[in-house]
C-alpha cells in the first residue's frame, strides 16, 4: 500500500512538472455596505454598518480536451449577523462543465428558487415574496433559500431557451444534518442575452419552474410528503432603449403546499401552508456613456394564503442608485412590510426600513482566452468552440 501511494505521488509530480495552460481566472467582488434605520411595532432600531450580502467569488475556467469547458468556483459571503451561519458563509463551491448547449453543475451554489433578477439593494430584500422558500429552513437566515448543494443539467436551445433539470440537498445551513437529495425540479426559461436586452421590443424573459421538496419533518405526519410549488415569471421592455430603458418584471410563486394546513404557528407552517406570492418591479435605467449612471425602481408584492383568508402580506420597496465612478454606486432604499392575520404574529405587523448604501462591484476575468456562449460574435456570427 505504501508503495502504491508513493507511485501516486510520483505520477502527480510528473504531471505538475509539465507546463500547463493558465486558466481564465475570474474575480467577482460585491461590497454592499449600508446604514439601516428600521421602524416596527417594537420601536426604532438601527444598524451602523450592515455589510451582509457582500461577497467574493473566485472562478477558474479552461477548455477541456474536447469541445467542453470546465470551471471551478469558490465563493464566500458575509451573512446577516444573526443568521447563525458564522462570520463567513461559503455560498459557492462548485464545478461546472459546459459546451455550447449543455451545462452540468455540481456542488454548493445558488438554487433554482427564483427565476428573475429584481432590482433590490440585496438579493433577499423581498425574499418572502420572490423566492420559493426552503421547507428545511428554520427561517433564521436567508441563505437557506438561496443556496444549496445542487446537481443540475441545463440544455440551451435556439440560444435563448434554457431547460434545466435539477436536484438539490436543501437544509438548514446553520445545522446541516443530512446531505441527501431532498428536492428536484425543472425550469424552462426564455432569456434574451444581456447585450441585447435594450434591443428587444417587448419580451426580455419568460419562464416557469416546478419544485418538489421531499420533507419529512416531525409534526407534519399525515400531510403529503412532497411540498410542491410552481413559479412563473415575465420581464417586459416597457421602453426598450440603450439610453433610457424601462422594464417591468413580475414573478409569481404558487406554493401548492400541504392541503389542510390551515394555521401558521411557526416558520415551518408558514412555508408549508398553501400560498400565492406575487412580486413585481418597474425599473428605469439611465445609461449615459454606454454604462449605467442612474437606476430608479419601485416594487410591490402580495402574498396570500389559501386556507387563511385573513392572513396576508404586502411589500413596497423602492430604491435609487447613482453611479459615482466605475463600478461604484451610492444608493438609497426604502422598504415597507405589512403583515396581517396569523403572519403578523410570526413577523411584526408592519415594518419600515430606510437604507443608505455604498455598493462596489467588479467582475474581471484575467487571462481571458476564449469567448462566452452569449457574446455577440458567438451568437450572431457562428459559435467557436
Amino acid at each position: 500500500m505504501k508503495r502504491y501511494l508513493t507511485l501516486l505521488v510520483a505520477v502527480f509530480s510528473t504531471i505538475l512538472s509539465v507546463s500547463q495552460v493558465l486558466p481564465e481566472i475570474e474575480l467577482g467582488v460585491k461590497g454592499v455596505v449600508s446604514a439601516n434605520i428600521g421602524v416596527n411595532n417594537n420601536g426604532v432600531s438601527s444598524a451602523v454598518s450592515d455589510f451582509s450580502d457582500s461577497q467574493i467569488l473566485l472562478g477558474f475556467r479552461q477548455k477541456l480536451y474536447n469541445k467542453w469547458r470546465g470551471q471551478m468556483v469558490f465563493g464566500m459571503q458575509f451573512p446577516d449577523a444573526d443568521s447563525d451561519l458564522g462570520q463567513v458563509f461559503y455560498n459557492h463551491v462548485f464545478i461546472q462543465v459546459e459546451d455550447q448547449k449543455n451545462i452540468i453543475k455540481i456542488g454548493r451554489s445558488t438554487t433554482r428558487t427564483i427565476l428573475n433578477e429584481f432590482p433590490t439593494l440585496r438579493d433577499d430584500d423581498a425574499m418572502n415574496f420572490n423566492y420559493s422558500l426552503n421547507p428545511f429552513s428554520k427561517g433564521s437566515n436567508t441563505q437557506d433559500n438561496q443556496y444549496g448543494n445542487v446537481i443540475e443539467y441545463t440544455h440551451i436551445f435556439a440560444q435563448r431557451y434554457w431547460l434545466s433539470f435539477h436536484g438539490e440537498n436543501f437544509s438548514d445551513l446553520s445545522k446541516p444534518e443530512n446531505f441527501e437529495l431532498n428536492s428536484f425540479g425543472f425550469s424552462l426559461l426564455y432569456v434574451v442575452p444581456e447585450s441585447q436586452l435594450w434591443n428587444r421590443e417587448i419580451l426580455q424573459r419568460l419562464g416557469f419552474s416546478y419544485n418538489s421538496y421531499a420533507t419529512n419533518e416531525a409534526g407534519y405526519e399525515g400531510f403529503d410528503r412532497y411540498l410542491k410549488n410552481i413559479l412563473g415569471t415575465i420581464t417586459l421592455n416597457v421602453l426598450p432603449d440603450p439610453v433610457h430603458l424601462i422594464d417591468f418584471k413580475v414573478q409569481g410563486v404558487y406554493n401548492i403546499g400541504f392541503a389542510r394546513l390551515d394555521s401558521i404557528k411557526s416558520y415551518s407552517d408558514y412555508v408549508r401552508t398553501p400560498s400565492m406570492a406575487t412580486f413585481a418591479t418597474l425599473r428605469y435605467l439611465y445609461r449615459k456613456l454606454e454604462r449605467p449612471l442612474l437606476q430608479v425602481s419601485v416594487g410591490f408584492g402580495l402574498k396570500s394564503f389559501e386556507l387563511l383568508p385573513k392572513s396576508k402580506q404586502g411589500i413596497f420597496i423602492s430604491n435609487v442608485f447613482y453611479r459615482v465612478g466605475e463600478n461604484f454606486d451610492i444608493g438609497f432604499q426604502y422598504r415597507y412590510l405589512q403583515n396581517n392575520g396569523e403572519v403578523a404574529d410570526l413577523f411584526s405587523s408592519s415594518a419600515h426600513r430606510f437604507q443608505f448604501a455604498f455598493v462596489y462591484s467588479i467582475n474581471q476575468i484575467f487571462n481571458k482566452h476564449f469567448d462566452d456562449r452569449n457574446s455577440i460574435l458567438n451568437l450572431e456570427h457562428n459559435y467557436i468552440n
Partner: protein
Amino acid sequence: MERKEFLRYSAMGIAGLTMFPANLFSKESIQSNGRLFPESLAYTIAGEWKEFEISVGIAIQELAPAMEIHTLAFNGKVPGPEIRVKSGDKVRVIFKNETELNHTIHWHGIYVPWRMDGVPYVTQMPVMPGKEFIYEFIAEPYGTHFYHCHWGTLLHMQSGMFGSVVIEDDDDPIKKQFPYDREYTLIYSAHDVNFIREELNGMIERMKERSYLMKKGRFDPERFNLFNTKEELLAAIEKGYQPPYLVNRRSSAELPVPNWFTVNGKSYPSTPNLYIKSGENIRVRLINAGTENHHLHLHGHDFWMVCDDGVPLPQPWKRNTVSLSPGKTYDIIIEGNNRGIWTFHDHDTRRVTNNGLYPGGNLLALIYEDLPVEERMVSSTGRMKMGNGQSMNLLPKVALDE
C-alpha cells in the same frame, strides 16, 4: 519508449500528416498551395474605369488546424483579394460595408486624391453599417502596395482587413533585369487573438447602440466620443465629461500583445510555401500589414532585394535577411541555385510561434519542385544515404513542438 507513448506519438504523426498533402511535390499539392495566395480580384470595365467590388463582413478564419477566430474579412477572405492593375489605369472600387461597424479603406502607398485616402474624419466620413463608398483613383505609382481599413485601425487591421495592390508596368524594370514567370505575394500580420475577440465584441455592442441612436437622430458627442473641434472637447471636459481613456474605459487597458503570426492569414503549419525550380527566378512581394517587425531570413540562399515600398532600387542588394517593418513592402528575387527544401522565416523567432509555442507563426518553405526523391530521404542518423530506402524517411515532417 513505452508502448503507450509510442502509440500516442504515432497517432500524432498520422494526424499531422493527414493535415497536409502526403507529397509536397505532387501537382495537387502545388495547386492547393496556390490557393493560399491572394487571388486577383476580377473587375468589370465601366467606360474608362476598371471597376472592382469589395465588401467586408465577419467570417471565421482558421489560422492553423483547429484554431479558429472571428475576423473582419474583405470578400470573405483574409487577406482580402489582390487588386492587380496596370500603371495609369483608372480604378474604381465600390466598397460595401456588410458589418455593423464603421470602416474605410486606405490605399497604402498609392497616389490617390486626398479625399480617397480613407482616413475617417480627415478625408471622409466613415462608411457606416450597410453603406457604400466609391473610391476612385489612378493607379500610380508602379509596384507592390496594399490596402487596409483605417477605422479602429489597431483592431480592424489585425482582424483581417488588409489586402495587396499590385500596380504592374508593361515595361517592368525588375522583370527585365531578373526574368521570371512566377511571383508570389506574402502578407505578414500579427494578431492578439484575445484582444481581437474582446474588442470586436465590445465594438459591435457599442455600434448596435450607436446605429440605433443615429437612426433616431439622437447623436450625442459625449456618448459617441466625437467632437467637432478640440475646443468642444475641452469645453465638455470642463463640464464633467470623462474621456474614454480615463475612468470610463470602454476596453482593455492593455495594449495588444500578438500571440499569433500569419502569412496570408495562416500560421505554420498552414502557411503557404514558395515553389521554385533549379535555374528559375521567382519574385516575392513582401508586405507587412501587421504591427510587428519581421526579420525574414531565407536559408541556403542570398536573394536580391529589388523594390522598397514598391520603388525599384537603382542597385538591387544581395542579402539573406530583410527587416520588414510595419507598413513596409519589399520585393525580392530568389534565384533557384541551391536545390532543396529551405525554410523562410522570421529570425525574431518569437514570431515563429503559435500561442507561444515554437514552431509556428510565419514559418514557411522554399521548395524546389525538381528535388529528386532520393534527396528528400534521410536516414535517422542524419547521413545522406542515396538510393538506400532502408530506415529512411521523407522530409519535411509536420512538427508542432520541438
